[in-house]
């Protein structure tokens, strides 16, 4: 099997594996961040450029370095390839530039955005962004659009990762979702705001790395870090019925797919489970969902036993 070395760690992987997936096999620090690549979606990746890495040695056969940084999510490894991610200043600089580009037209309306706390863009800018902005121009804005009864599209927040386009293309059966216009005027369109009417359309919310596609049944209900995510399942005739229910007390506030450490869902779930099954009695709770991502939601400590409060106040004791 071909060997590849990423930030000094050597690993054997199958022929045709991308640098990103090789890095994910190792895990940890050497994994480049991804804003557009989604392993469950065919053709995804290559667009956001946050995963750029430096190939310092092409392969054993042709050891020449690659002249430009490459997108690790869509560049296949070669035997003997050597890659620098975090160890390359060039990569870190380029990544900083990419984060800046992703943010210049982003509204930064985190305080009123449902995605805050589980937003890939937020996490990315914490790690790779700068404190201030050099952008003094007017930001681009779009009107909000309702895509059917359950989903809202807020293009102003969109980073054009195309994940929802591929989702709509690949797991729903009607192609009514795509990109209109060009450049920074391009927008996700559902051809004349036609509602995506499909049992699996809700998954576009889960794949969206930012708050551009949100769940209308959950809008403004709560900050995600106040909720307790629980693995739960139910018998469903459309999907596996395996989901995460986000609870506040005994109430289910929202239902999502089960996301892994790269914020990708393990399985896509159907709209009935997601939007229309908020009754706790209809779910079997398995236990707390472990959030392994570095993010505000993992600060919730919901997996710990509540601390016993000792009251030392003589008067109220």
């Amino acid at each position, binding site marked *: 099997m071909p060997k590849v070395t990423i930030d000094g760690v050597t690993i054997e992987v199958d022929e045709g594996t991308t640098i990103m997936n090789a890095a994910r096999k190792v895990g940890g620090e050497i994994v480049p961040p991804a804003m557009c690549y989604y392993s469950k979606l065919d053709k995804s990746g290559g*667009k*956001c*450029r946050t995963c750029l890495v430096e190939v310092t040695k092409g392969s054993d056969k042709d050891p020449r370095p690659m002249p430009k940084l490459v997108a690790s999510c869509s560049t296949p490894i070669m035997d003997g390839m050597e890659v620098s991610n975090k160890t390359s200043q060039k990569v870190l600089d380029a990544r900083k530039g*990419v984060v800046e580009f992703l943010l*210049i037209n982003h509204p930064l309306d985190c305080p009123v955005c449902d995605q805050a706390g589980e937003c890939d863009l937020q996490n990315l800018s914490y790690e790779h962004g700068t404190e201030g902005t*050099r952008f003094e*121009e007017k930001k681009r804005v779009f009107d909000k659009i309702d895509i059917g009864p359950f989903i809202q599209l807020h293009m102003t927040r969109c980073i054009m990762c195309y994940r929802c386009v591929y989702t709509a293309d690949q797991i729903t059966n009607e192609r009514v979702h795509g990109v209109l216009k060009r450049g*920074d005027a391009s927008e996700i369109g559902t051809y004349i705001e036609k509602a995506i009417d499909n049992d699996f359309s809700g998954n576009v919310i889960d794949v969206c790395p930012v708050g551009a596609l949100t769940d209308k049944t959950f809008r403004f209900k709560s900050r995600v870090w106040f909720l307790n995510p629980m693995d739960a399942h139910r018998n469903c005739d459309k999907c596996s019925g395996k989901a995460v229910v986000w609870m506040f007390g005994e109430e289910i506030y929202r239902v999502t797919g089960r996301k892994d450490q790269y914020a990708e869902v393990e399985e896509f779930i159907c709209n009935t489970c997601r939007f229309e099954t908020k009754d706790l009695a209809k779910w079997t709770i398995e236990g707390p969902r472990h959030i392994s991502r570095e993010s505000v939601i993992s600060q919730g400590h919901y997996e710990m036993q509540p601390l016993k409060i000792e009251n030392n106040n003589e008067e109220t004791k």
Partner: protein
Amino acid sequence: MGRKILLEKTGIENINTYEVYRREGGYSAVEKALKKMTPEEVVEEVKKSGLRGRGGAGFPAGMKWSFIAKPEGVPRYLLCNADESEPGTFKDRFLMEKIPHLLIEGMILSSYALGCNTSYIYIRGEYMWILRILEKALEEARQNGWLGKNILKSGYDLEIYVSPGAGAYICGEETALIESLEGKRGNPRMKPPFPAVKGLWQSPTVVNNVETISSVVSIVNNGGEQYASIGLGKSTGTKLISACGNIRKPGVYEIELGISVEEFLYSDEYCGGINNGKRLKACIPGGSSVPILPHYLVTKTANGEQRLMTYESLADGGFATGSMLGSGGFIVFDEDQCIVRNTWNFSRFYHHESCGQCSPCREGTGWMDKVLKRIEYGKGNMHDIDLLVSISKNIEGNTICPLGDAAAWPVASAIRHFREEFEWHIKEPVKCLETNYGLVKETELEA
């Protein structure tokens, strides 16, 4: 007079018709190739000719052809890139309008060499009347047995179709062109796989410029070696240059590669010098994407050598003091032109034409456009200049397709050579709206 290959016959009356084209020796190369040469021999002649791609990148055509994958039972495609949308470039249009059969003859030869039975000409949507010219010419060629089944009883079949774009510059990028031809949104593809392996409908594909393909006719007629004897070094043959701007004689010229820039710019055979007795300020020798050269680097390189119209000489000095031959769009500025305004204009173009797939280009082009517009209208700050340089650096090399670079280079090179003019715009916000900065002084060139 320089030697003409492509435009040799364009002066002949009605050369756009089949009868006259044929009477003047047209389609003899097809006869020669199909009757006396194997496809490999045609490729070999093109290799010998040293012909380089005329669409911008200058990649050797013969080499590109030999890279095409040949899996059993899979069709191969030749696509002619007639999207010609680069500001300052208007040479393919001239060729197709004046002598459409030359392109068709070249297409037949190239398709034969590559083993393609279906080929396409992808033409920019704004060239609708040329599409009709080509379709008429194709029909004439078909009527006369140059297309269809069993051409010249050689057993070789070929159909050529013309397909128009819908007005997007990005569809000139070869993989965006392929997507567009497949009926999809014209977004460039991620590479690898390269078109030579998986192109149109996932089949091996070669994309070549109109001028590249048209040049094959002379190579087959007279042999690759004869073609290679024209030109200089690795810049063989002739090249069409579309000259525009403040020159006395704007137009499309065919030059032998290797003549000096000075001759091209000042002789009466070509541009005829700067118009209205003005002085030269700057020149963009290869279409809007290539770096701009200040007047003191146009006819001479940084180390004082004469600059020639070749791929190598125009690039001499790299990005610091050189430029590129590119697509041959030769844009000349006199002392009255404003570099800031021109740079803004180009930025606006790339902003408008970015497909929007990758973040550096989508966001960066719009940002540069906005900053340059402010500077042009007297609302700039000194730190904007370095900001522009930084944005262009963050775009360059980090995008999916070369449009990102094409947007970054004009800005970076304009600031490199005309920084004082940018500063003047910022320091004189009122005056810069009324008058222009004039000529730059020759700044000390760093070694």
